[in-house]
């Protein structure tokens, strides 16, 4: 608590030093500055961490040449990216090509503004915080389309279309699984959601039947939403060069990468807020440690989980991706929503625990059994032109 109060006091002191007409702008600037700087730095460190951890998973060292233990590798990467030539294709739509990376980064950064980093430590405390977050996520789809279409490149357009199809498909389970939390909390404001889990580890939403399934569904949809492995088909290197980023180089390419990283952090922060207690300590005794430390700890462990998943799983095929979204994710998230409804109707307690847990378990085991029997290594069927023309 003291840390948050200190930060807020400093901010108000600084704002009061400004002339009156500048105060709203100054306040907004001072609120967004820590977010932008800290997540920019965190992104740089995360790239290094990702490469190191992937290396260890593959029994390699990872980057260890620049600086002690490779710590300065992000700096070297940054210098390389910034000094590279910025090439724009001759036939590209210059304005759209230029606006796309900016739009992506801005929408990713704006998503962070509704995340509560501590008690009262939230840049934009609005009633409809989570809706704002998802609206910004939707705006990033448009930016990806602009990147793909503005490049005048087949691979870029194909990658963008794949990305958008994937993001729209996975947005539904994403929002539905978040909705279960909102139903129970009864508010769209993320600070209310965090406040509802203030009592310690047993009040965290992940330790309820609907929260557990919801968290897993949310994490899977998050992976798809930020185009990370195993859902990285929009930028599948072996098929599409780099998807919508094919025609970008230098600083703009770095912006794309940064937007991806920031979107990952924003999604992880949202997951932590929705299911893992937000900025609250797992035990009330530990609450002397400031809230941002807890949130960043949870966020980092989720990022580590994502890297771990990336080091484990191969890329999905496009049709498998869609099948998974519509045949598994969507029904499960609807069932989870019903389970959360049962919880709300019974107002928590043991009966609600058993009922919603039973509902989720039955749905999960039953549905996965049906699905795996339906597609148990069927021989692949091919369609040939001659065969399709045969009339029976």
């Amino acid at each position: 608590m003291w840390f948050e109060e200190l930060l807020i006091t400093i901010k108000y002191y600084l704002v009061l030093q400004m002339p009156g007409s500048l105060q709203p702008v100054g306040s907004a600037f001072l609120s967004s500055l820590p977010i932008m700087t800290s997540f920019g730095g965190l992104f740089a460190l995360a790239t290094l961490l990702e490469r190191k951890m992937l290396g260890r998973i593959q029994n390699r060292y990872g980057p260890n040449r620049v600086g002690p233990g490779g710590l300065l590798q992000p700096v070297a990467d940054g210098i390389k990216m910034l000094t590279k030539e910025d090439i724009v294709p001759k036939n590209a739509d210059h304005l759209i090509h230029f606006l796309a990376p900016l739009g992506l980064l801005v929408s990713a950064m704006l998503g962070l503004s509704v995340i509560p980093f501590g008690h009262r430590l939230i840049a934009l405390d609005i009633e409809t915080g989570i809706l704002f977050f998802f609206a910004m996520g939707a705006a990033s789809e448009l930016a990806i389309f602009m990147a793909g279409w503005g490049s005048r490149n087949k691979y870029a357009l194909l990658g963008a279309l794949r990305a958008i199809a994937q993001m729209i498909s996975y947005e539904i389970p994403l929002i539905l699984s978040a909705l279960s939390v909102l139903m129970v909390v009864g508010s769209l404001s993320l600070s209310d959601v965090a406040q509802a889990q203030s009592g310690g580890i047993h009040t965290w939403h992940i330790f309820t039947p609907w929260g557990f399934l919801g968290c897993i569904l949310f994490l899977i949809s998050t992976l798809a939403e930020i185009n990370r492995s195993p859902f990285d088909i929009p930028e599948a290197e072996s098929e599409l060069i780099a998807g919508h980023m094919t025609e970008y180089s230098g600083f703009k390419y770095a912006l794309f990468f940064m937007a991806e990283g920031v979107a990952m952090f924003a999604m992880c922060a949202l997951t932590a807020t929705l299911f893992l207690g937000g900025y609250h300590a797992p035990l009330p005794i530990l609450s002397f440690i400031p809230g941002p430390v807890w949130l960043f700890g949870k966020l980092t462990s989720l990022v580590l989980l994502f890297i771990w998943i990336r080091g484990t799983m191969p890329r999905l095929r496009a049709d498998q991706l869609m099948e998974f979204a519509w045949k598994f994710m969507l029904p499960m998230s609807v069932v989870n929503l019903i389970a959360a409804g049962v919880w709300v109707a019974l107002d928590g307690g043991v009966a609600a625990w058993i009922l919603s847990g039973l509902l989720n378990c039955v749905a999960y085991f039953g549905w996965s059994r049906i699905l795996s029997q339906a597609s148990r290594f069927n021989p692949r069927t091919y369609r040939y032109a001659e065969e399709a023309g045969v009339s029976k």
Partner: protein
Amino acid sequence: MIGKGILKGMVETARNLTGSFHDPDRLTTVEYPEQKIPAKENARNFPFLIYDGDDWEAGLRCVSCQICEKECPPQCIYIEKDKEKKPDFLGKMQMQPKIFDIDVSVCMGCQICVEVCPFESIRMDNDFEYAGSDRFESLLLTKDQLAKSNKYYHSIHPTEAQETDEIRVQKREDHLAKEKAKAEKLAKAKEEAATKAALSKAEKAKEE
């Protein structure tokens, strides 16, 4: 059950992740400029010229016969003969190269030059650190860069060097035997001539 295989895979990668910290055998990476793996005995890439003794110019085995230059498929060898001759290991006067260049940017390491060389003078090296800042000059190896001692040859390819030395010993023995036989033949011929002369002398004296 959906998700079981994924969990199994994640356990496996987690084992790799933690194992690479406490089990050094897992990490097969060699930190190259600081650590080097000793080259395998049969490793070879570009040719070099062998010399005997300590003075590379005097001990160079090459007699500039130019067979390798003619046989080289990508024609990366360039030889110019010197006017002055020098004695080889058998004591015979032989030609020597004035210029002997190998362009390693062209060389494909086929080892044909080694196979055709009748004087055991050109052999394959295993040094691979040829990186330079210039594509042309630094990759054109001249005679003084190519000349390496027989000791070095023994250090990189011991078995092969042993065989080469045996061939040379054999050659020397053959040469000595030949010389001996020649000398004997010569002596015999002389003797015969002498006896013949003595005989004819005696016959002449008889006739008289």
